[in-house]
């Protein structure tokens, strides 16, 4: 990509017959870009990516994300000149690559948002357009022949029924793909797998394209990073470098990794505060820790990061965990084996990057196993155990039945919101999306009640 001047040739496939509507961003295009556009386009794409990121952390469902992406794209990425739309798409992508290539955490975020964007745009495309992308990737997978189809037909039908689809028919095309290429389909048992080969139906092809796109972009980011370090930063130090550096910090969505309001939670209040202001997931972990003097890894992460987010200082956190764990494993062992990870959560060890407290979505989608206590009680408790836990929080009568009703309909965050409202006697209009948000909202209400009591 040339900024202002334009001489270089590019290998961007302009002579291809099929031009897919979604570019694969294979190489920097030979385009002229004005400096203002360089920045403006990037900011607009960034709005899309942040919108997606925000939607995901709010626990939006796939179809909601789909709609979100569609809207965000329309608002931010259109251009009065229709012929410019594709250019804008490409330019903004390449600029953000520069911005986000420079640190591991940034790369990860960018990779995952761009992949989500790609995948959702792809779903909006026609099968023919998807097919065109398939050709462009040059994927070598073979379709199952008719003779072979007969031999695996029963299994394929069995999978179709298991994932709630009607049986496949002979005209559904299946591709034979190494299982490594479709990890998400394998993980959810959405494909038939035999001797390392996954049988991927036409309507699952997006999964393959997504994997391809992700791995392609991941490699490209590493390469961009090298180029940035070895030449671009220096060459562009008076022109692009300052813009690129400013862009990476230009927008921040809700971030609970640093305590914000009501910062500071001191150890002496912690039990009382836990009772009043922790959401059930954290309260359960907290009580289990007090009871067993131990939590397994998943529980330590979920509770530990939450506590960091609500303002428990590192020293206090160490004292808090030590007081419990040393009763089970001894102080010495705590210092040697657990203290490190707590400091790590606070960014004091290892890579020194902050870990972010988990959102409801992340907690709800976790899969606690035997001996684990993390997860979301609305999602992971049996109804009986949930009733007991809610009763302990003081939720009863009609409120309790409503919470149970929401839970049974799998609206876990709504159930949590109703619990919040029952416990606090106040409404929570935004709904619960993040345990730390629950906490902050609770503190806010407590505060205002206190103020009105003692004017």
């Amino acid at each position, binding site marked *: 990509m040339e900024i202002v001047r334009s001489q270089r040739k590019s290998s961007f496939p302009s002579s291809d017959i099929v031009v897919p509507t979604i570019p694969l961003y294979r190489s920097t295009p030979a385009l002229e870009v004005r400096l203002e556009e360089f920045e403006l386009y990037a900011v607009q794409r960034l709005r899309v990516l942040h919108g997606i990121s925000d939607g995901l952390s709010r626990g939006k469902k796939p179809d909601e994300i789909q709609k979100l992406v569609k809207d965000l794209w329309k608002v931010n990425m259109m251009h009065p000149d229709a012929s410019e739309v594709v250019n804008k798409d490409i330019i903004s992508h390449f600029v953000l690559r520069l911005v986000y290539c420079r640190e591991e955490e940034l790369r990860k975020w960018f990779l995952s948002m761009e992949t989500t964007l790609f995948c959702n745009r792809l779903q909006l495309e026609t099968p023919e357009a998807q097919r065109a992308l398939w050709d462009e990737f040059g994927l070598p997978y073979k379709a199952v022949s008719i003779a072979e189809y007969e031999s695996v037909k029963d299994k394929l039908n*069995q999978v179709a029924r*298991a994932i709630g689809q009607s049986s496949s028919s002979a005209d559904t095309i299946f591709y034979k793909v190494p299982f490594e290429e479709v*990890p998400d389909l394998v993980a959810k048992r959405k494909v038939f797998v035999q001797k390392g080969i996954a049988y991927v139906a036409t309507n699952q092809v997006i999964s393959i394209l997504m994997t391809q796109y992700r791995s392609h972009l991941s490699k490209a980011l590493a390469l961009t990073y090298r180029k940035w370090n070895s030449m671009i930063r220096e060459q562009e130090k008076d022109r692009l470098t300052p813009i690129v550096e400013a862009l990476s910090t230009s927008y921040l969505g809700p971030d609970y990794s640093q305590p914000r309001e009501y910062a500071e939670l001191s150890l002496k209040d912690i039990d009382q505060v836990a009772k009043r202001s922790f959401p059930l997931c954290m309260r359960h972990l907290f009580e289990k820790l007090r009871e067993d003097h131990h939590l397994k*890894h998943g529980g330590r992460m979920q509770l530990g990061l939450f506590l960091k987010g609500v303002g428990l200082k590192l020293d206090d956190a160490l004292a808090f965990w030590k007081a419990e764990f040393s009763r089970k494993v001894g102080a010495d062992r705590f210092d040697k084996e657990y203290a490190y990870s707590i400091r790590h959560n606070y960014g004091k060890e290892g890579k020194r990057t902050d*870990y972010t407290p988990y959102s409801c979505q992340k907690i709800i989608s976790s899969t606690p196993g035997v001996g684990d206590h993390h997860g979301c009680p609305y999602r992971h408790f049996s109804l009986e155990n949930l009733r007991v836990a809610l009763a302990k929080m003081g939720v009863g009568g009609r409120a309790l039945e409503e919470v149970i009703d929401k839970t049974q309909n799998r609206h876990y965050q709504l159930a949590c919101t109703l619990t919040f409202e029952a416990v606090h006697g106040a409404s929570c209009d935004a709904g619960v999306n993040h345990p730390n948000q629950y906490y902050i909202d609770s503190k806010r209400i407590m505060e205002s009640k206190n103020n009105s009591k003692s004017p």
Partner: protein
Amino acid sequence: MTMEEVENGRDDMLIDGIEPKQNQNIEIPEEFNANYLRAYYAKLFPYTDMFKWMSYGNDGRHPGCDQSYVGRREISFTLENDIYTRFLSFNSITELEKAIKEKCPFKIDIGAVYSVDPAKKDAYSQNAFTPVERELVFDIDISDYDDVRFCCSGANVCSQCWPLMTVAIKVIDTALRDDFGFNHILWVYSGRRGVHCWVCDGKARRLNNEQRAAITEYLHVYKGNENSNKKVSLMGPLHPFLARSYTEVLKDFFEEKFIYSQELFSNEERYEKILEMIPEESVTSELRGKWLDNKRSRDDVNMARWGHLKQLLQSGKHKAQGIRRCVEEIVLSFTYPRLDKEVSKHMNHLLKAPFCVHPKTGHVCIPIDPNHCEEFDPSAVPTLSKLLEELNRGGLRSEGEDELENTSLGKSIRYFRSSFLQPLLKSCKEEIESSYAAKTQQSKNTLSW
């Protein structure tokens, strides 16, 4: 590597350490002690076989061999007083043997192969030091089945509950071979309360974390803990993998063995556990009514009651959603393998090496042949004291390698060599040769071009 992962590694290492000593169901003539262990390391530990394994053919003379390979493998020792040292590495059998004999580790763990020598990791940046290869591993513990066995709990096992491990091996082993196409799989008794599995195919060693997680989730069905009561929820009909596991292994095991060995229906407390899994009031109350009047019959009570339950659920009389799959759910809840998922998902998780000796039981962690896993009897596993006794008895007669072969460990070593190591090394050799040939071919092409 993130420290989160390091910490996971530690959790695993803690498994044997954390709980207090418990009485064993398996009788040990003599407890384990450090002197015994020293003698074991001096005379019996199969250094050469272990080193051959870890080298994966790279110790050969072929120009395609990667001489640095084995030295980039992380080994960790846990010493007598629970001091553990991570990120050790060994370049030769001699180095490995010397270190083990000198330090006499109570536990040896095997980690990943890294991009650079893990012992020198501090000389490299975070980014340059990353895991590049790792066997796909699984860890199954009988203590995770405490809610479905009534004979033992915690780390104890007996012949009534050990078959749960046997069916776990069958289900997972078949899936790894038939579904994922792996061939070089080693099952190992963990020395006390479970089994470990090492999948060693080149393709398995090179899986990334996302692909490992995908396989783990594919194999993972049991989702419960003490907070939830439905441990397995099936949305619709079974996926072919689960259908096969169910019809070929689990159903028969449950109906023909497990309901009797654990007397699953013998009293109210036990059968209530099963009724809890049926979400339809009318069914459970009908069954309760039937089972309350405890009239004697000639049939075994477990068999009779399981029969009632099945008949009622499958009669089609109750059409309620959610009960159609109940029979399968119950069987799977009780018998489906319960994996420790974290161990399998990350490349840099540590796992105890085969042929270690468990410090609490004195049992040697010997391989289990998945084709004959029902013959495996944990109480018959060679113990340190037994082996030393055999050595003393036969001591003057033989030397070196033979010494090992003549003990009761001999059978395990022979199995390890002939059924696991030899075929593995053969395919490693082929892989090294063919990838070398492909490389030279490629460079020729570039030259001519």
